[in-house]
């Protein structure tokens, strides 16, 4: 988990990179950005991508955005990174009258708003690490025209602006400076000799923070935190020390370090990260603190999957994975024991296993620095995720009582609300396009802005599906985007489904809806495509299984279904029109 040095990142670019998927990225700045570009490209290699980069000439932010014929637009980037520095803003501020200094934040915000509006592409904008110019000392807090006041206002308002503009994402390098310190981030002799505003030492951190956002946009992010118990979640060993003697809470030993650690895990859970436990213990002993210890922050309710036994942890984690049905690369495993960490790291391909510091009081600050849980979206549905996984475990138990699958499905009393996308479900729909890897036919990722455009366009017809049953509501779990290719043919641009609702006959229900729509609007055929990724083998034969015929089109997997011959598929899901 050690971050690479700039030199190592530079070396990454000499490796054989032709196998890696390509991302088109543009980088614009008001300072020398060549090294930053190299660092971002080098980090991308470590994350499994090759960046095709357009780097604008020095100080061209304005021109590149405002000129519709600029290189930026002809390059057609997927992500545009903009790094306008605090330093340059300060020199601009220095030239103004006191009266005008009051407006420096607003002026910059207007500019950012303008460039965001001038492009559809995702903008990754660096916020402003503070420079304290010490003109007023702490009194600057009382003076609106002080640079301190203006820079803090700018960072604050940038957060508001990014909520308003769906294609604007802030890369929080101000937070990074808080962590690393300004004296590490900025090297004055590097600056005066090269116009470079980041020290060589800090470049890998800034690049990593930037790639975190791009990776999240590409669907590579963490969904699950697996925790060891003894000396990770509490101090001491529950099996040896007993309930009264483990360290947690403010009374015993370094208990508060573990309390705060658990509070962090709880916040992650509330944000939608799935918590699981993997511990070498007897199950009853391991659960005892969760049930009986008054100082425990985490309760059994917070844990989606609880595994405590004496098997090896790599196998236990594979077991947890099979219940949750998510990729190993979306899992983080925390354990105080270096031996367990190394077994898991070596035997579970793709999982992230941080080298926790030896001293538990240092866990949190270390974990803060890793920025493991970057995301590109957040919706209220995220908070319910733990419950949904627990409910899934109950469903699995019920299914064991039925020998006939149809009877089981019928007994579930399933209902689905089907409707075109609306403004309330835009975040969730966009998030599903970013999160879903397995049941996803083409794996096209969409931002919220993209989804809005799709629902406003007459070229597209969208459907979102919810699914509820007698155990609870799964929320919005399936997304369909249909593109009207011609008067008689409609193309399935997106068909994805959450893996929580596999094997419920949702595919049949969805196809019935698609065909019904096609029929009512005079289309003669439905065309689908399967684009293979390392993760979506599950749906390789999706269209064949549903009765589509294979079209041979130069190595691409296209399938077609004629509406005339379609007979409605059997499904135990009932359609609910409005909730």
């Amino acid at each position, binding site marked *: 988990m050690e971050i690479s040095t700039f030199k190592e990142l*530079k070396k990454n670019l000499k490796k054989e990179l032709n196998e890696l998927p390509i991302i088109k990225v543009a980088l614009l700045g008001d300072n020398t950005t060549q090294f930053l570009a190299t660092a971002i490209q080098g980090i991308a290699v470590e994350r499994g991508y090759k960046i095709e980069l357009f780097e604008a000439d020095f100080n061209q932010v304005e021109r590149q955005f405002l000129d519709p014929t600029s290189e930026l637009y002809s390059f057609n980037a997927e992500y545009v990174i903009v790094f306008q520095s605090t330093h340059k803003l300060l020199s601009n501020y220095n030239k103004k009258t006191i009266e005008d200094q009051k407006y420096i934040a607003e002026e910059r915000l207007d500019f950012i708003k303008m460039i965001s509006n001038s492009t559809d592409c995702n903008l990754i904008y660096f916020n402003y690490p503070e420079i304290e110019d010490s003109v007023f000392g702490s009194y600057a807090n009382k003076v609106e025209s002080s640079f301190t006041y203006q820079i803090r206002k700018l960072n604050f308002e940038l957060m508001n602006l990014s909520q308003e503009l769906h294609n604007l994402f802030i890369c929080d390098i101000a937070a990074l400076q808080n962590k690393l310190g300004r004296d590490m981030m900025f090297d004055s002799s*590097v600056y005066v000799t090269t116009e*470079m505003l980041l020290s060589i030492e800090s470049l890998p951190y800034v690049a990593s923070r930037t790639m975190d956002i791009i990776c999240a946009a590409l669907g590579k992010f963490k969904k699950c935190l697996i925790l060891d118990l003894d000396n990770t979640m509490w101090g001491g060993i529950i099996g040896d020390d007993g309930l009264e003697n483990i360290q947690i809470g403010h009374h015993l030993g370094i208990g508060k370090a573990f309390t705060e650690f658990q509070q962090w895990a709880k916040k992650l859970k509330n944000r939608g990260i799935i918590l699981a436990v993997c511990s070498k213990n007897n199950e009853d002993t391991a659960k005892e603190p969760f049930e009986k210890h008054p100082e425990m922050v985490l309760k059994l309710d917070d844990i989606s999957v609880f595994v405590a036994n004496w098997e090896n942890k790599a196998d236990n984690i594979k077991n947890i994975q099979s219940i949750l049905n998510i990729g190993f690369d979306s899992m983080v495993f925390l354990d105080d024991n270096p031996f367990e960490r190394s077994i898991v790291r070596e035997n579970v391909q793709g999982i992230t296993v941080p080298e926790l510091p030896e001293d538990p009081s240092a866990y949190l600050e270390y974990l803060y620095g890793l920025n493991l849980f970057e995301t590109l979206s957040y919706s209220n549905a995220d908070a319910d995720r733990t419950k949904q996984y627990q409910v899934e475990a109950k469903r699995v138990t019920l299914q064991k009582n039925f020998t006939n699958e149809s009877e089981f499905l019928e007994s579930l009393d399933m209902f689905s609300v089907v409707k075109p996308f609306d403004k309330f479900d835009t975040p969730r729909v966009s998030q599903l396009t970013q999160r879903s890897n397995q049941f996803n036919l083409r794996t096209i990722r969409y931002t919220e802005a993209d989804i809005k455009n799709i629902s406003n366009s007459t070229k597209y017809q969208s459907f979102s599906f919810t699914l509820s049953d007698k155990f609870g509501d799964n929320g919005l779990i399936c997304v369909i985007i249909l593109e009207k290719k011609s008067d008689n043919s409609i193309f399935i641009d997106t068909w994805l489904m959450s893996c929580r609702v596999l094997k419920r006959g949702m595919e049949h229900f969805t196809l019935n809806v698609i065909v019904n729509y096609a029929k009512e609007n005079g289309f003669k055929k439905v065309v689908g495509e399967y684009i293979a990724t390392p993760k979506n083998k599950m749906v390789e034969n999706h269209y064949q299984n549903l009765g589509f015929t294979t079209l041979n089109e130069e190595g691409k997997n296209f399938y077609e279904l004629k509406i005339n011959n379609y007979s409605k598929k059997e499904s135990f899901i009932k359609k609910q029109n409005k909730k």
Partner: protein
Amino acid sequence: MNQQDVLNQVQEIFQDQLDDESIILTNESTANDVDDWDSLTHIMLVVAIEKQFKIKFTSMEILSWRNVGEMIDNILNKLN
């Protein structure tokens, strides 16, 4: 440490930072003689040299050297 010791160490830093083991430095070497030695990689070299010898150059010094020999004199000055 004498001029030659410093030159040898600086040469190793150049080879390492620029990832080119064929680089041979003399006191007379300039940026024109070494591929990839430009104003930007220069700063990588400077930072690596500062770290190796545990010294810190001023910005003026960094901009003043006309060849490797002058840089080495500067290092020796700081070390003594």
